[in-house]
């Protein structure tokens, strides 16, 4: 008989206007990796925040190791043996890895922190679970993946028996994700129980033992991972059958709309990031750029859209050079851009939906009259129209955009950029962090743009996305385009091989299974 280390019984949590968790009962078995999946806003993070003591349930009971417990705050949770790693890390940048791990639980001698003992303790712990990280490095100097390991170490250092990971892969590169899964396996072998919150079905299938699906605050069901599949889980999450591939007609490419020739761009540190890239894009086609993140895609896109100036090379839009123009002038010539990071680039979170929908159009008629004054009526009308046709929820143009869900925020960006009927559309990670419903919507809109004769450049780290939307695929590695394939020639294995720097000649030939892994 399998023992539940953690049991949630009839948990209900209401927020003004929504029931975030509706009578959820769930058992987590000792030593398992239990995936908790659901779309954005389905209540999975809320549920785990209740377990960790950040929220109090309105009704229901938490039973830990067979005893009903009241978890009033995270400290109580930690003392019980619960640990949680959040999407946004809570580390002190200026302190070292060790200092962060031992914070508030410092080993000490006569009131002085025993730093040496702390370092060796942290190193031991890291080695035991395969968490590669330099215990003496400053947190400010380490990568996001390493920061996450520090967070996991923090929980383990406090002897967590149940570790809750809130969408841990959202911030990781594919390699880092691989490594995280290895660590999770190690933890399971050594008896730690893991609750893994995600909305990526593939990850669930790869790593978990059991999976529970939430939808709109309710538990839809729990399955043994071995006995379920992608289709069933997707259906449980969305509540209906989902298209796993985008429905589309073959592309009808017309004349060239953009050509990039010999482009060289440096990154912020002055290192060459884009090395001699040349591309051609036609009207009515989607050109996908596949590649592991950090291989120059972002610099390429920012040079094309005018946010950085290339060292050398040309970007021609309908035959005219645009590489020296300002972002505003490039926009006005019919270029739309979905930026990779909607919080850093795409939106002004303190502005209303209506004001975000005019970002970049704000200085042009009809939104400005007499060269200076805002035309509130036009701004409102524009917002009302787009909110309706792109189904932004809640449909209130005056709402501050920070309070919208990630999917709806992205819909605002998409609405703004797509509704301008661009001739050239750049989409950079257009569906990052979104749930299946929103992804489906945005994918259909991209295909609709293509069919209206727009040239689409799609940059994505998700191979699925590249494969289901693109008509041609360029693979970027180390700042260069290493291969351009038609969609018929491309498959996951070949792309994966090229993305990791594989020899294009060999990729054309047969590929041994397992080549993609290393």
């Amino acid at each position, binding site marked *: 008989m399998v023992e539940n280390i953690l049991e949630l019984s009839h948990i209900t949590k*209401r*927020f*003004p206007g929504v029931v975030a968790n509706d009578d959820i009962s769930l058992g987590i078995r000792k030593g398992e990796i239990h995936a908790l999946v659901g779309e954005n806003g389905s209540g999975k993070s809320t549920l785990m925040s209740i377990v960790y003591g950040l*929220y109090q349930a309105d009704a229901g009971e938490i039973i830990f190791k067979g005893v009903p417990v009241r978890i009033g705050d995270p400290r109580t949770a930690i003392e019980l043996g619960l640990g949680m790693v959040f999407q946004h890390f809570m580390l002190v940048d200026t302190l070292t890895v060790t200092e962060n791990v031992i914070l508030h639980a410092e080993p000490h001698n006569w009131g002085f922190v025993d730093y040496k003992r702390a370092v060796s303790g942290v190193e031991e712990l890291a080695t035991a679970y395969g968490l590669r990280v330099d215990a003496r490095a400053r947190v400010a100097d380490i990568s996001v993946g390493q920061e996450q390991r520090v967070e996991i170490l923090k929980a383990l250092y406090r002897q967590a028996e149940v570790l809750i990971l809130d969408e841990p892969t959202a911030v990781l590169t594919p390699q880092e994700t691989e490594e995280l899964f290895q660590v999770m396996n190690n933890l399971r072998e050594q008896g730690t129980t893991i609750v893994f919150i995600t909305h990526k079905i593939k990850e669930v299938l790869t790593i978990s033992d059991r999976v529970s699906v939430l939808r709109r605050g309710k538990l839809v069901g729990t399955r043994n991972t071995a006995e379920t599949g992608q289709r069933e889980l997707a259906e449980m999450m969305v509540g209906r059958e989902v298209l796993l591939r985008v429905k589309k007609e073959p592309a009808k490419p017309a004349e060239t709309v953009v050509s990039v020739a010999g482009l060289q761009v440096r990154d912020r540190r002055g290192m060459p990031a884009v090395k001699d890239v040349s591309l051609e894009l036609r009207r009515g086609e989607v050109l996908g750029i596949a590649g592991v993140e950090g291989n120059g895609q972002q610099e390429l896109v920012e040079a094309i*859209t005018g*946010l950085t100036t290339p060292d050398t090379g040309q970007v021609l839009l309908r035959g005219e050079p645009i590489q020296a123009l*300002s*972002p*505003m*002038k490039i*926009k006005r010539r019919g270029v739309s*851009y979905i*930026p990779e990071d909607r919080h*850093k*680039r*795409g*939106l*002004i*979170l*303190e*502005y209303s939906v209506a*004001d975000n929908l005019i*970002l*970049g159009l*704000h*200085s042009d008629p009809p*939104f*400005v009259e007499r060269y*200076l*004054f*805002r035309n509130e009526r036009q701004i409102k009308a524009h917002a009302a129209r787009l909110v309706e046709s792109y189904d932004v929820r809640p449909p209130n143009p005056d709402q*501050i955009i920070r309070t919208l869900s990630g999917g709806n925020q992205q819909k605002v960006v998409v609405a703004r950029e797509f509704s301008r009927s661009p001739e050239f559309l750049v989409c950079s990670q257009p569906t990052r962090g979104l749930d299946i419903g929103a992804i489906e919507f945005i994918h259909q809109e991209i295909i609709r743009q293509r069919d209206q004769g727009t040239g689409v450049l799609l940059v994505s780290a998700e191979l699925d996305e590249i494969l289901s939307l693109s008509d041609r695929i360029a693979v970027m590695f180390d700042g260069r385009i290493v291969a351009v394939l038609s969609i018929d020639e491309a498959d996951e294995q070949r792309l994966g091989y090229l993305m990791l720097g594989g020899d294009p000649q060999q990729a054309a030939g047969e590929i041994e299974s397992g080549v993609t892994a290393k």
Partner: protein
Amino acid sequence: MELQQSSLSSRNLLVPLGSVILALLVGAVFVLIAGENPITAYRVLFVESFGSVRSIATTLQRATPLIFTGLGVAFAFRCGLFNIGAEGQLYVGAIAAAIVGVSFGDLPRVIHLPMAVAAGMAAGGIWAAVPGILKAKLGVHEVINTIMMNFVAYYLTDFLVTGPFHGGRWAPETDRVFPTAALERIFLPTRLNSGIILAVVAIVVVYVILWKTKTGYEIRAVGFNPGAAEYGGISVARNMVLAMVISGAVASLAGVEQVLGVHGRFIQRFSPDLGFMGIAVALLGKNHPVGVFFAAVLFGALRTGGAAMDRLTDVPRELIVIIQAMIIMFVAADELIRRLFPKKRKG
């Protein structure tokens, strides 16, 4: 610190009002130490600052320069810039207005007065543009540069008022400005002058620029999120410089008002830290033009009533400084206020 608020809703009023109440409570302790009844002291404070038309006029007169410096600081805040240089900007504005005011005696009033005001604004604008440009082009922090520009302004005006523009009297001051350049007194015998009308106009203009024009949209966008502004085709550098110029021009009006409306001449080091008080006013007013008005009036009232309290009770006027300091402390510690005055919490 929440430097960026879009509107003055009741939620936003909680911290300023709570801070004022708490500061008065802390002040009451000091009144008790001075051996006086706090209720008596505060009654005097209130009656002498708001109790009669005349005292209200005095309060408004004291508030006028603070409205200008508060507005100036708040404007820069909206672009994400911390302008500590209002003091220097008001000095160069004051000297420029005084120089125009003591010259051109044969001009008609409709030309002379606007010219003096415009000269002051131009001087303040240029003074603030320097740290603005340094920030926009070279990334030098504006706090450092605006502070340093203050010292340059002190010594430059010291030189001008003791050298080329020294007046006929022995004191370090200019001659009286011609009546054609003066902001006339509007409520004798107080020194309330038409500068208060200018202040109200400035409030409206700042409000319109920030929320009704594309320029304000761009400036606030840069303040909230420079990355997104740049993506939206907004020039971050240009808007930073523009925001500093407007900020400096508005702040300099404090000096202009003191010269043309109160003293009638430029007096060396005349300002009782009006520029620095402007930072407090902006903070308390939540960087909103209307909030700035009420904050400035409050600070004006404290100074007016404080002087009377000193005269009529055993409480020294330094109590006012304590209260002002406490207000700033509590506004900065806004989380404390939210906990002391809990509203219904959002989930």
